[in-house]
């Protein structure tokens, strides 16, 4: 009687302790954070796309007033096509090479746009054009949204990578999510890059 009871009790204990351990370790943390990073990444792409969509209109408006700034305008157009034509591999978040390429292209577009807005300062007519003012404020707003989206992404990746690399999460991932990989994140290059200051 005791012999048959004993293993059963131990099995119950086993299950109980195993369950407690798992509950403490939050076995769903890895996929949950994974989804969060994906959502944050979509927002980053979304905002970059929004910026790219503003460019043709902006270029056209500026060209109407400042045709002689051809060089700056061409630079913007080229940077845009480079940024939008890049094929994003599906594993971009785990692929340092592609990720850096993406980041560089977007930073190049950001830089070209910043130069364009500096050049524009020479044209008072343009600066009082309603269409231009509206586009400029949209561009500013979008740059700001990009900053926020990037920061949200960085934070979500930090959380995800920390979960994956620190101990309980690392064990859980090793057993349950062997395919989970540390993700790429932005370095602060673009954030640190302020729009050039205008001197009068």
């Amino acid at each position, binding site marked *: 009687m005791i012999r048959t009871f004993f293993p059963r009790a131990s099995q119950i204990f086993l299950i109980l302790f195993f369950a407690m351990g798992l509950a403490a370790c939050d076995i769903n943390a890895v996929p949950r954070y994974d989804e969060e990073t994906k959502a944050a990444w979509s927002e980053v792409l979304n905002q970059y796309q929004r910026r790219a969509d503003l460019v043709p209109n902006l270029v056209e408006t500026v060209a109407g007033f400042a045709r002689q700034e051809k060089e700056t305008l061409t630079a913007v157009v080229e940077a845009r096509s480079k940024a939008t034509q890049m094929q994003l591999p599906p594993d971009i978040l785990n692929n340092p090479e592609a990720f850096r390429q993406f980041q560089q292209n977007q930073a190049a577009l950001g830089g070209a746009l910043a130069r364009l807005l500096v050049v524009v300062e020479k044209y008072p007519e343009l600066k009082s054009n309603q269409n231009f003012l509206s586009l400029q404020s949209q561009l500013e*707003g979008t740059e700001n949204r990009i900053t926020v989206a990037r920061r949200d992404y960085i934070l979500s990746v930090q959380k995800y990578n920390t979960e994956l690399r620190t101990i309980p999460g690392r064990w859980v991932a090793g057993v349950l999510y062997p395919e989970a990989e540390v993700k790429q994140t932005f370095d602060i290059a673009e954030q640190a890059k302020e729009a050039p200051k205008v001197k009068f």
Partner: protein
Amino acid sequence: MARYIRVWGAYIWAIRSLALMLCAIHIVAGQPGFAAEPKFPQPSSRVVDEAALLSAPAKERITGWLEAFERASKRQVVVVTVKDLQGYPIEDFGYRLGRAWGIGEKGRNTGAILLVAPKERTVRIEVGYGLEGELTDAISRAIIEQNILPAFKDGNYEQGIVNGTAAILKVLGWKGDTPGVMRDAPQSAQELPPIPLLIFIILFVIFRFGRSGFFGGRHGRGVWGSRSRGGFSGGGGSFGGGGATGRW
């Protein structure tokens, strides 16, 4: 059989200590520290005038508008003036403040903030995700330049804030001092639940709260998301950096 038990015993012991270890480590490791947040003022009311730019009547007037507006539209607009931005850019401070307070309805993110930092001489209209389509960047900028900055440049902060708030509310569909009149109220404000559902909810409320009292220990919202009338709390909305900034 005895060997069987001994093996199991050892196994259990190993698992148990492992589980305990996991728990202990989990508690010790905790959450890693994430980026520092600025210190925000307390969300004591819809108008938080930390920089003391508003007179009492003006503050009361704006608060009244904002309350009426929220009742009519479920959208939350707040006015915040701060002593300083603690070294953060106003764009950064603004959206974090919005998220920290949770301005706007949860899920719909229908909140907006008029943020004034007189020390840095900047003003910002911070727009929640859900209002970006109406209070666009371009419109926010127009409000700042046409309604706010002229008064601010004359040093008349109160006038600028009053004008700016009125302009924001107008863009968001408010018609004036008469509460409940909306140009086009969002659908959720008009639709009532169907009658069987209402009966069910009433019965539910009676049985659920009948003994302990409806407002007893429960905090937060009532049964279908109505907010408390007098006080103020954010609804859980989020912000993504929409809006515009002005300097003077």
